[in-house]
């Protein structure tokens, strides 16, 4: 057991990140369980504690008598220094046990920039960072989360991955482990991994060897072992009502990023924005019933004492019975002063009415994501939103008293012209003018936040060559030059980070050396602007003799084999290619939950159906 003295805690910021024992945290006797599972997020406590997936798995695993799931997050720089200088290993927040004593460490991989933090956490735990070096007494390192749709860049650091939704697959894996352990761990860790590979949705990278041609182009995988599946399809929950889920979330002692109850209305979003990986990865849409949602809300309020519920989903306003649900929830909790928030607003007046009803008077800013500045560009990305929609929605908001609006955009999208880029500044100006016309006042604040587009695996734009640093910088300045009004506030992202993300998002296994070098050069918390240091990565690419432009800038051929295609959400490649062609032709594709099947192939491949209660009722 690790002891953290008060001298250490007194010298670091936010010491309660490291002390655990929060309300609803689960405590068991170490000897009483056969599977010890550390659930981790390679980020600080406040970020990790806010992740819905980890909260769900914490409860599902802890509901098993044979398993104890504990939590561990990345110590911030100051705490890491204290731990390294005193030889304190990384430990879990429930039993304060050294991480290398666990059977599994599961990392939730939310975005590529967390990779070096994973390595750093393994190192802090005294665990070999390369999977091939791990001995029989070391934990199995398993990854999950959105990054699994291209995990090749980190495949060499992990023993296994879980592709897709883990509610059912993770318990299955635990059973395989307990069985193997009961047998006396026959043939060491290799035997367990072989058995694990037979669990649907589990990817064991050591059983797959990537092949390259003489030019260094990836040509495919060679599988090891007879029953190793060549393709691993994501696991998916058909019935969101009956699946075990979060009912007793941990209540932290300090403020965290999402310090409220997350009520997951539904999974999936089939609006079909062509840049969006989540839109493909979580298909199809599966809603919870209103009665189940009200039941969950009641349970969670009762056991936490929280006063706020966030109605969480990729696009919450698309919940088919949202109006009725909100009315009923507000009624259910009217005596308890529980507030409700809608994290993702659709660009229409229905959303504004709802936000108005839910927020009552607190007119904090509204956020919309038109994503692109011109209609042409929005048609390319299949963002089914018109300028009229945006002006109507913001106009409705202005009439109701809002005066701050935040708009999200991207630059560097396929077929983008300077006109499209300048269109971002122009659209912001139109919103400002609209405020003046609607209210007769000038006290509006329109913030435009412009990020650099990163093409992702399993999207229509997976073939697209990312813009160069020079292109991004030029476009960022172009927008700046065209902003004339002082009511418009302009933020843009560091293109260096987006370009690196672009390399990792469509990288292959050869990048593991680069990630290792970057970590050795001091990289960790790369997602934190104040911690990211471009030079560590530049050196890492040089040290490994790898040209990053091959991965991010290069436009890929339609017949090229991709290194991520074996861990798949089940989408058909032909569908994605067709979507890319439609994008170039500026042609729209409709949302399949409300119209006809658009042929992405996921439902058929995985044997699942759309669950839309509004449609059911109609």
């Amino acid at each position, binding site marked *: 057991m690790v002891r953290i*003295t*008060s*001298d250490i*805690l*007194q010298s670091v910021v936010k*010491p*309660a990140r490291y*002390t655990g*024992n*929060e*309300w609803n945290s689960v405590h068991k006797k170490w000897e009483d369980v056969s599977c010890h599972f550390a659930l981790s997020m390679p980020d600080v406590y406040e970020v990790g504690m806010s992740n819905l997936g980890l909260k769900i798995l914490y409860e599902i695993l802890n509901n098993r008598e044979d398993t104890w799931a504990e939590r561990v997050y990345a110590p911030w720089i100051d705490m890491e220094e204290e731990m390294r200088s005193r030889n304190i290993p990384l430990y879990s927040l429930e039993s304060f046990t050294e991480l290398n004593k666990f059977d599994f460490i599961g990392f939730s991989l939310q975005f590529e920039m967390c990779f070096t933090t994973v390595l750093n956490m393994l190192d802090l735990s005294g665990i070999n960072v390369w999977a091939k070096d791990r001995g029989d007494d070391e934990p199995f390192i398993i990854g999950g989360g959105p990054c699994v749709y291209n995990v090749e860049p980190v495949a060499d650091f992990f023993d296994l991955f879980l592709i897709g939704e883990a509610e059912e697959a993770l318990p299955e894996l635990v059973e395989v482990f307990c069985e193997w352990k009961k047998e006396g761990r026959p043939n060491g860790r290799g035997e367990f991994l072989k058995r694990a590979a037979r669990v649907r949705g589990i990817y064991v990278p050591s059983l797959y060897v990537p092949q390259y041609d003489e030019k260094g182009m990836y040509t495919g995988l060679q599988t090891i072992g007879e029953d190793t599946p060549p393709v691993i399809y994501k696991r998916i929950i058909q019935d969101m009502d009956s699946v075990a889920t979060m009912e007793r979330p941990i*209540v932290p*002692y*300090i*403020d965290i990023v999402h310090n409220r109850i997350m009520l997951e209305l539904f999974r999936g979003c089939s609006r079909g924005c062509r840049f969006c990986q989540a839109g493909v990865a979580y298909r199809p849409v599966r809603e919870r019933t209103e009665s189940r949602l009200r039941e969950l809300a009641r349970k969670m*309020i*009762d*056991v*936490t*004492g*929280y*006063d706020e519920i966030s109605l969480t989903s990729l696009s919450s306003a698309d919940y088919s019975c949202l109006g009725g649900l909100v009315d009923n929830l507000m009624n259910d909790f009217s005596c*308890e*002063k529980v507030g409700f928030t809608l994290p993702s607003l659709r660009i229409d007046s229905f959303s504004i009415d709802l936000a108005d009803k839910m927020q*009552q*008077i*607190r007119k904090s800013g509204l956020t919309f994501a038109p994503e692109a500045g011109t209609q042409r560009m929005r048609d390319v990305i299949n963002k089914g939103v018109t300028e009229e929609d945006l002006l109507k929605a913001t106009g409705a908001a202005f009439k109701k008293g809002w005066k701050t609006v935040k708009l999200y955009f991207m630059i560097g999208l396929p077929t983008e012209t300077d006109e499209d880029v300048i269109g971002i500044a122009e659209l912001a100006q139109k919103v400002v003018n609209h405020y003046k016309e609607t209210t007769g006042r000038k006290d509006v604040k329109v913030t435009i936040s412009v990020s650099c587009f990163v093409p992702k695996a399993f999207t229509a734009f997976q073939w697209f060559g990312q813009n160069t640093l020079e292109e991004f910088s030029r476009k960022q300045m172009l927008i700046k030059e065209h902003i004339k009004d002082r009511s418009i506030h302009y933020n843009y992202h560091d293109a260096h980070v987006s370009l690196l993300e672009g390399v990792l998002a469509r990288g292959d296994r050869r990048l593991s050396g680069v990630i290792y070098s970057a970590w050795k050069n001091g990289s960790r918390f790369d997602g934190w602007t104040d911690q990211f240091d471009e030079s560590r990565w530049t050196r890492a690419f040089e040290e490994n003799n790898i040209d990053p432009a091959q991965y991010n800038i290069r436009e890929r051929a339609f017949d090229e084999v991709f290194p991520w295609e074996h861990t798949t959400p089940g989408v058909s490649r032909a569908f994605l290619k067709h979507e890319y062609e439609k994008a170039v032709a500026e042609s729209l594709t409709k949302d399949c939950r409300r119209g006809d099947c658009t042929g992405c192939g996921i439902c058929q491949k995985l044997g699942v159906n759309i669950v839309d209660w509004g449609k059911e009722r109609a």
Partner: protein
Amino acid sequence: MPEVVSYTYRAELTKDAQLRFISHLDYAALVERAICRAKLPVVYSEGFNPHMKLSFASALALGVTSESEYMEFILSKDLCQPEVFDKLSSQLPDGVRLKALKKIEGKHKALMALADEARYRISFSTANPLSEWETAVSEFNNAESCFFQRKTPKKTRDIEIKQYMIGQLEIEANDGLIELSASVKITQQGSVKPAEILEYLRKSSGSEYDISNVEIRRTALLCGGRNLMDVM
């Protein structure tokens, strides 16, 4: 508007070692959530952004434990003391213990305005001999004034410590640890933190004394020398 009948309850709580590193605001939030979970019919403020009417006597510095924190909350129903006590107790996390609870009748001053004295025990280990510390303490006790530089992220200023001291600073050795007992005034103009007294002593001889494993405990919060539970 009809007058709403309400019932004020005052509670004495602890903040134990495992919670010493959460801030006063976070401590208040955890008590608020415990009251929610206890399903007590608590009264909220009026207005568009209602919040629980909860007040504390005196904020505790980060890292300090306490045997006696005081808070008041208001219920809309006249519940009997044992019921409120048991319901709230059952929902408090490890590290907070409800020691006493009573319904306050009639007019009374705000809790915040009542507390005028805090008592602390400060224990630590040190490489310096006891005699050196005893000298420092006795010089402190005999001095007319002692100035300490208080640094906050925003500014640095000199504060005079002795004006806040009640009685003598006491020192004793216990199991290889040194224990100081201090009683300080809480005034509207401010007070002195126990950690500041210790820091002053540590540097008072000219050379810096060694200290480690510092534990500071608030043992009492008083009004005119009486327990806050007994003062209206």
